[in-house]
Every structure is written in C-alpha cells, then in structure tokens.
C-alpha cells in the first residue's frame, strides 16, 4: 500500500437504467488533501460520493480506503462520514443530540460524550445553541451542525455534498474560508462536491472537473484555470473568449483577424483545427489604434464595482469578445456603448484547445 494514497478509486461505473451516472472513473486522493469534485448539475457528483460512502454499489470497479477494499462494507462500518446536501439533521433531537449521535453509536457516554460534543460545538462556533432543535436554526447554523455532526467521529475521510449550496453569497464566502480552516485544524481529508467553480478554486488543493460521469481534467486550481484541456473545461471554469483557427508554420491563423501566437502552439501539429482561448482579464483595450490591435465597437458594459466587463464586437469578423478591466484602468471611466476601441493580448496568455 502506498502511504501517500488514502482513497483509491479504480474504474468505477454506475448506471441508473439508461443513464450512466459515473463512467469508468479512476482517482487517487492523498491523506490530508482538500479535494473538490466540480461539475455541472447531473454529472454524477452525488452518485460518486454515495458510492464512496457506501450508499450505492458500483456496477463495476473498486474503492479502496487506506489500502482496504470497501466492496461489501456497509456505510455504518466505513471510517467515512458524509455531510448530506439536505443536511439531514434529526428534527426530534437538539443540536447537541444531533452532534453526539455518531459518538453514541460508538458507545461513548457520559462526561466523555459531553466533552467531545462541547469541543465540536466550539469548532463550528455553535456553543450557545446546544439545546435548540434544528427547526429553530438559520440555514447557516444548520450547515454548521451538519458539519460538526460529521466531523465529531474523526473520520479518515469526510465527504461534503454541496455543503454551501443552500447559503446566501456572503455567508458562502465566509464559510469557504472557515471550511478551509477546519480542514487544516483537524487534518481530516475532505472531498467537497460543488457546481460552483469559484468555490472549488478558493478552497481546494486539487480539483477534479467532471462531465457526464468522467473526469475531464484533474489538477491544482491554477492548472485548471490557466491550462484547461478542452473547451468544456475552459468554459466551465471562469469566463473565456473562444476564436476558432488553424495551426500554421508561424503561428495560429484566425480567419479574418490574422496570425497570432499562443503559449502551447508547439504542442500541436501544423494544419490542425483549434480554438484559441483567451481569458477576459488578459485582453488589453486601447482608446486609439495601434499596430496589431484589432478594432471593434463596444456593445455593452457591465459594472461590477471592482471590475468592468466590456463586450466588444470585432469590425473584421463580427465576433464578440469579452474583456474585463480592473477599476483602476484608465479607460473604465468613459467607455460608452458604440464607442470604438482596439484590443490585443499577449501571445503567452492565449491557449489553444484541440476540441
């Protein structure tokens, strides 16, 4: 057994009738990792978590935890806990009763139980609410109870299904940082499911981007953002401009626009059809014409406070580019709809996608 692998998923598949929810998926997760499963709704994230927790049986493949095969092991016998998307708090028990439940099942009683419930309450900052019933808690408080209830058993692996999905934006951002702190403090390996790319980028050490039950890309947040492997990955994570073209001897020919450079051009053979992908914040806009910059007309702007989004329609081809300027940019003050602007981008900031 490899000491650097906690969870080993080997070629698992799961179908529901005609729908293949998880399709021949292989994944390794290291101890202490904060891992995110990211993907659009319906791509099989929950199904994968439920197979790891033991609530669904894979049709094919194997799951190993700390070296031992989990096949046939019931959920209540796995050193894994799942925080449910619905939280699934027991409505007839108090906050303390909910949190202590898992330890009670291990036979922990009396002062030992009380002390550890107290610690768990402390960890999620809910000390004052120990005797409340769940129906008298706010969404954020419920989320914390569910987290404490799953953490108190000190599992080898904690699975969190859309843990912040039900919270409003402000609270969600605060809890992202808090989850990260709790994970670091406890040292427990986390697998968090989310469909929110920003959340995955903020929290995770590594991200697996799923699409239709398969891993599309696996890597660190920066890799996923900077070097998406295909159009789906580029589109799902952050905003992206796409310009179709063809690899030539001296660059990438974009029809009607010219020949451009890209960071990964040498990886691709000449003559191949590609899509050039450029992040909106890497586009540069100018008020006056300059060599090699493409002219266009402003079609609309969106003011985001710290940033300004500019939609620019290129004169040459009618293609729309989205640019994101920081508030400090010279231009942000006086861009108006219909205005003429010029844009370019550093070749190192453009990436070619083969599909």
């Amino acid at each position, binding site marked *: 057994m490899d000491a650097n692998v906690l969870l080993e998923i080997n070629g698992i598949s799961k179908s529901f009738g005609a729908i293949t929810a998880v399709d021949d998926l292989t994944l390794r997760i290291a101890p202490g990792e904060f891992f995110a499963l990211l993907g659009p709704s319906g791509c099989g994230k929950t199904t994968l978590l439920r197979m790891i927790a033991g609530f669904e049986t894979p049709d094919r493949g194997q799951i190993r935890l700390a070296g031992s095969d989990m096949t046939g092991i019931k959920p209540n016998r796995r050193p894994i806990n799942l925080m449910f998307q619905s939280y*699934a708090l027991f409505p007839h028990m108090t906050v303390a009763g909910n949190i202590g439940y898992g330890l009670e099942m291990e036979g922990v009683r009396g002062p030992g139980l009380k002390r550890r419930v107290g610690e768990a309450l402390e960890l999620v900052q809910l000390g004052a609410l120990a005797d409340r019933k769940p129906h008298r808690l706010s969404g954020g408080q419920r989320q914390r109870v569910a987290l404490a209830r799953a953490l108190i058993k000190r599992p080898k692996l904690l699975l969190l299904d859309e843990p912040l999905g039900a919270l409003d934006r402000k609270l969600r951002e605060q809890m992202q940082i808090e989850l990260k702190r709790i994970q670091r403090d406890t040292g427990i390996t986390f697998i968090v499911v989310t469909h929110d790319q920003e959340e995955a980028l903020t929290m995770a050490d590594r991200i697996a981007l799923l699409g239709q039950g398969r891993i599309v890309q696996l890597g660190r947040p920066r890799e996923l953002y900077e070097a998406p492997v295909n159009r789906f990955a580029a589109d799902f994570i952050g905003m992206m401009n796409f310009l179709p073209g063809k690899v030539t001897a001296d660059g990438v020919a974009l029809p009607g626009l010219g020949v451009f450079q890209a960071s990964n051009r040498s990886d691709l053979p000449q003559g191949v059809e590609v899509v050039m992908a450029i992040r909106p914040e890497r586009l540069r806009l100018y008020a006056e014409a300059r060599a090699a910059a493409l002219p266009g007309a402003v079609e609309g702007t969106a003011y985001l406070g710290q940033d300004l989004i500019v939609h620019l329609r290129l004169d040459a081809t009618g293609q729309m580019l989205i640019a994101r300027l920081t508030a400090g940019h010279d231009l942000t003050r006086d861009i108006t709809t219909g205005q003429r602007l010029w844009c370019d981008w550093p070749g190192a900031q453009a990436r070619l996608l083969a599909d």
Partner: protein
Amino acid sequence: MVLSRRAVMLAPGLGWLALLLVIPCGIIFVHSFFERGIYGGIDYVFTLENYRRAIDPLYLRIFLASVRIALTATAIALLLGYPAAYFIALQAKRRQMPLLILIMLPFWSNYLIRTYAWIVLLNREGLINRGLIDLGVIDTPLSLLYNDFAVITGLVYGYVPFMILALYSSISKLGPDLREASTDLGAGAWRTFLRITLPLTLPGIAAGCIFVFVLSIGNFVTPDLLGGKQRAMLGNLIYGQFLTARDWPFGAALAFILIAIMMLLLSAQAWLVNREREIAP
C-alpha cells in the same frame, strides 16, 4: 371578502355535520338527564341517576372489558400494520399506489358480510379447524369462535387498513435522508429504526392507534356476531338499552360517555397532527 368566501364554501359541510351529528349528539346528551318511562319512552324529569348507574360495577366491568379488547386489537393492528406500512413507504413511488389500493380493497364489500365470513372461517367445522385436522396438527377442533379471540380477530381484520394508512402517511413523509444519515453515523438498521424512524413516526402511530381504538370500542356488530351474547362490549350494551331494555335515558348516558371518550382521543390526535406539521420544515 376572503373570509366570507371561505364561510360560504364551508357552510354546506358544516350544516350537514350540524344536522346529522351535533344536533343528534345534543339530543342524546339532553335525554341522558331524564327518567325512563314505565313502558319505555322518556319521562321528562331531571335526574343524574343514569350517570350514577353507569359507574355501577356491573357496567364498569363491561366498560373495562371493552377497553381491554379495544386496546388489544389496537396493539395487534399496530404490530401488523407497521411493517406493512413501512414496506409500502419504501417502494418506488409508482408502486405505492397499487399497494395502497390493495390495502383498501376490503372496504369495497360490506362490513357485515366480511364479519360473517369470519364465522365461516372460525367455526368448529370451519376452514381453519378443518384444515388443521386434515393436516394432522390437531385431533379435536379448537374453539375459535364466540370468544374474545374471535372478537379481537374481527376488529383487527376490520380496522388494520386504517392503521396502515395512518402509518404510511407518516413514514412516507420521512424520506431516506435521515435513515441514511443515521447509518452514516454508525447506527445499524435496528438502532436507526429505534432512534430515528420510530420516534419520528410517533404521530402516525398515535393517529392510527386512536383510529383503531375509537372504532373498536364503539363497535357492536363484531362482538355481536363473533363474540356470542355473554361477551358484550360497550357498543352492545348501548344497543341493548335502546332496542331491548328500552331504557333510552340510560342508553343515552352510556352513549354520551362513549362519545366523550372518543372526542377526547380524536382531539388529542388532531393536536398531534398539528404539532407535527409545525415542527417539520
């Protein structure tokens, strides 16, 4: 405007209830304070004698026997009904309705006829005795009919569907999440049932038990047909006072006591259902 429309829509139903339920109950209540006429009928002289007589040991014994039989029937109906309701609630949604219709199928034939069918099954020459003798399990027929066993069997048979429906509605509301959360936290199937499913379906259990108890304690057909004459329950006693002994005021007093008990239990049930609705999100 909204209120008045609601009043208009409720009026026919409430009127119906008032005419056929509240007013007759009122009449019974009033009559329970009068004296019996010499040749039956009623002498309109105020008295509390009927209520004093109702707690006479002779009648108190019948009352307690009725409670005991109704409670036994309720307990058995609960034990039979819970697994059935649980099984149905766990099926895929589209399979639940056909099963529930099967549970309600007996209601399509008359209660009296179904009770007579039990006589055919339970008598000394009946299907059950014959079958057991033919199989060599017993030599002489068991006395299965005209005793408490037969009455309880008949009541359980008649009312177990109400129990199942009440339990089903409570169990199916629970959903799999809480059970899975309990399993995830290390509880086995039995502990999950005791700690999660059972407490959370208590309102359904109470509702089903109150239904079956109320229906059983007021029943007079089943004890009459399956219990034999000397095994009278409260319902038979009231029936007898009105139709045989012709002591209407005493019958009215007994009936009113029974109605009061039922009302109390049914309000408790309504209160439980309301409270459940408040707690569930």
